[in-house]
């Protein structure tokens, strides 16, 4: 087999996996702190894709053309507004149901995702939307290959990988070394006790939703720039895939989410590239099931000890 093809599939998988990882963070954080699956998270990602395109168009309309300013500005705005959506989802679908049975928030989250999907469809139209190409260019190895025998990564793709790693590092640092992170971890361990010790757990839970949404916004921003198009339906599939990644990595673990994403991305790429793309998703889900049966805690999750 051609080594460049193999290398290229590695790159493909890595890039895809990084986006999965970024979205998986939202699932893993929410699950870690309240033990619930946030089914509306995929739609939050979808919202962020729309916001990216809207703000990009807005900057162009206003007349700001300096690329770094535009990109940074769009990223920050997208993160802010997506975070606001994340916060609202928590306030509407989760907080009122804090003390009810475990499944009620699941249903309300599914309701929220229906609302968000259709809200976007009605307000922005059902057709595909997109952004014009930005930051075009590509690294190739070897750089001057003529016969298509090269491994390449576009600037945007490398940006995805780098940003994913950096933001993951920042997030991990926040959780591990700041007062906020300590409060998060305390809430995760024992919500009632944390509350008694003066941690405003409601606020911490809100913060976690906000952080998860912000990470989804980063993913939405990068993915939108990279693939150039999206529609109101992209949240569903991406949500399921990212969720799979979170579980593979060990739900509740931040580095695990990233690792799970990359593993899933690589697995999909290799399967589609070397076996059959028809059954790519079957393979991904089978992997998930097998993994859960033999190692339910994922790669980096802490194995649950059965307390008697």
């Amino acid at each position, binding site marked *: 087999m051609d080594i460049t093809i193999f290398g290229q599939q590695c790159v493909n998988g890595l890039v895809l996996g990084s986006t999965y990882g970024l979205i998986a963070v939202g699932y893993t954080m929410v699950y870690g702190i309240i033990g619930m699956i946030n089914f509306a998270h995929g739609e939050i990602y979808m919202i962020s894709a729309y916001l990216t395109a809207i703000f990009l168009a807005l900057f162009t309309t206003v007349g700001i053309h300096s690329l770094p300013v535009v990109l940074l500005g769009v990223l920050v705005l997208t993160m802010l507004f997506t975070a606001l959506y994340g916060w609202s989802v928590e306030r509407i679908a989760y907080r009122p149901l804090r003390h009810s049975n475990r499944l009620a928030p699941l249903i309300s989250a599914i309701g929220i995702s229906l609302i968000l999907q259709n809200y976007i469809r009605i307000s922005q139209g059902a057709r595909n939307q997109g952004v014009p190409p930005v930051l075009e260019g590509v690294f190739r190895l070897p750089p001057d290959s003529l016969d*298509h025998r090269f491994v390449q990564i576009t600037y945007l793709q490398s940006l995805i990988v780098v940003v994913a790693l950096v933001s993951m590092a920042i997030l991990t640092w926040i959780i591990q070394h700041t007062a906020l992170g300590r409060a998060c971890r305390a809430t995760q361990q024992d919500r009632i006790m944390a509350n008694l010790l003066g941690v405003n757990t409601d606020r911490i839970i809100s913060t976690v939703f906000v952080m998860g949404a912000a990470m989804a916004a980063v993913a939405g921003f990068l993915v939108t720039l990279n693939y150039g198009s999206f529609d109101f339906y992209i949240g569903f599939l991406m949500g399921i895939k990212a969720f799979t990644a979170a579980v593979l990595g060990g739900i509740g673990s931040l580095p695990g989410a990233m690792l799970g994403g990359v593993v899933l991305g690589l697995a999909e790429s290799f399967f589609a590239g070397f076996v059959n793309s028809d059954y790519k998703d079957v393979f991904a889900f089978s992997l998930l099931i097998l993994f859960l049966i033999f190692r339910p805690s994922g790669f980096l999750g802490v194995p649950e000890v059965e307390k008697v």
Partner: protein
Amino acid sequence: MQSAKRLLPVLAMGMMLLFACQPSGAAEPIRIGVAGPFTGSDASFGEQFWRGAEQAATDLNAAGGVLGRPIQLIKADDACEPKQASAVASRLVDRDKVVAVAGHFCSSTTMTASTTYADAGVLMITPGSTNPQITERQLPTLFRMCGRDDQQGVVGADFVVKKLKATHVAVLHDKTTYGQGLADAMKTRLHSLGQTEVLYEGLTRGEKDFNALVTKLKSIQADAVYFGGYHSEAGPLVRQMREQGMTAPLVSGDGIFSEVLVVSAGGPGFLKGVYMTFGADPRKIATGKALVERFRQNGYEPEGYTLYSYATIQTIAAAIQATQSQEGEKLAQWLHGHPVETVMGPKAWDAKGDLQVSDYVMYQWDDKGKYQEVE
């Protein structure tokens, strides 16, 4: 207090008058159902359907309606789910008492819903379902305003083999009734031309990352790619091909016939070397030009199935006008024997309900985001 008491009967009288007047004010409208995916992942095609049908009804009503009665459209959403399609079909038949239906869009929903219409003897003309099986069942009241996938596949395969001189053809599809039907037709024709495809695979609808597949296409050195599917996947696919340095042409069917393809590919620059089959562009036919202008004035580009659904409503109206009847079987009988002048030119149907003339031609995209017929 007193005045209020006196006011009440007056008010009631007024209300009753209002209700009583309403039906007699205008002639009983002729109801036509417009069924398609107005929500869900295929809503963009539903939008095209509705716009076309709406415009047709407006125009016909402005010209005095049919049999002197106005046309009333009933919007029926099937979300491209067979389950909803059969519910919606029986609702159109039983509740709304429609005379005819323009729809559905997705081949799978047309399959389910058509039995209901056939049972009730309601005329059904689908502007967009191209899967061959639909008319092969020979339901008496079912017609198509579009071609069949096998016709499209023939045009596509001939083009790929004869014009593009491709020898390593990869056939992809999106695993939908439509996309796979198209890819199968392509494959069959390729075989009869003495070629074997180098790859036949499906990709997942709704995904945006096909890089792994593209790398695979590169590794098997495909010199032409045929894709059965919609623009929402074709766009990212062609973009990723170009980004990975693949210049092989991408050939597809009517599912990508939309300027939204430019947006879904993320820019017109990626579209060089993209071809597609579609009926002769209705926007170029003389009768259609004025209409296209009217659409554009309202800020809507009438593409894809917009004019198809316009023509569908026209056809239904023509049949009603000619037969003076509202019975589906009579309308169908008439349509089987008579051509209809539509905005897309004259159309005539064979015994199965397929168009007699398949007018599929090949279009080519340029890097400005425009397309035109290949000579």
